[in-house]
């Protein structure tokens, strides 16, 4: 089973700040997914990255897949309170292994 390490575990910032969270593994990812989970709800898929070096943008969110496909990052520009939530990375074929997540709190 592939182990996914996410950092930081917790991040508290002010509205308007930029931030980056990371997902790393000791083995190669076949593909990697990023989910966001808002308080009291189930996770919702943000993006899937497949190709090494791939960069995907979703409004103010930029996802990058490492060239060696062992790491990924999520960068948020000008964070807003609505970005508050648990950000999870996951990888796998028929089943997914999830990282423990980064809890992001954006204060007004």
């Amino acid at each position: 089973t592939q182990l996914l390490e996410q950092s930081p575990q917790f991040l508290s910032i002010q509205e308007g700040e930029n931030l980056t969270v990371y997902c790393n593994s000791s083995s190669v990812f076949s593909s990697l997914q990023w989910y966001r989970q808002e308080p009291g709800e189930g996770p919702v898929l943000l993006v899937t990255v497949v190709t090494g070096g791939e960069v995907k943008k979703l409004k103010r969110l930029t996802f990058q897949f490492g060239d060696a496909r062992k790491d990924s990052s999520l960068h948020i520009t000008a964070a807003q309170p609505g970005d508050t939530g648990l950000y999870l990375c996951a990888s796998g074929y028929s089943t997914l292994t999830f990282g423990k997540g980064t809890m992001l709190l954006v204060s007004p």
Partner: protein
Amino acid sequence: NAGVTQTPKFRVLKTGQSMTLLCAQDMNHEYMYWYRQDPGMGLRLIHYSVGEGTTAKGEVPDGYNVSRLKKQNFLLGLESAAPSQTSVYFCASRTIGTGETQYFGPGTRLLVL
């Protein structure tokens, strides 16, 4: 479409009691999953199913049983609840294929006293 629904939303059990959590999806997905989420532990897979009539163990299957008698439903059973099973349980489903989206239900909060 309702997507993935879970019943009940919240339940309190006494140690030793049994219960069944119901997951239903209306997207005609082949794969269905049960996870538990505990503080600091992330999402851990309990059991999953790759099709009607099939089930398989995940990372933390002990103390749970599952059934997939109909394609749209996936049941999670606790035969004799223990305080260690206090958690939030999520069901998910997805279609066949690599990198496909897992769609999650809203969760069931279970407290075992």
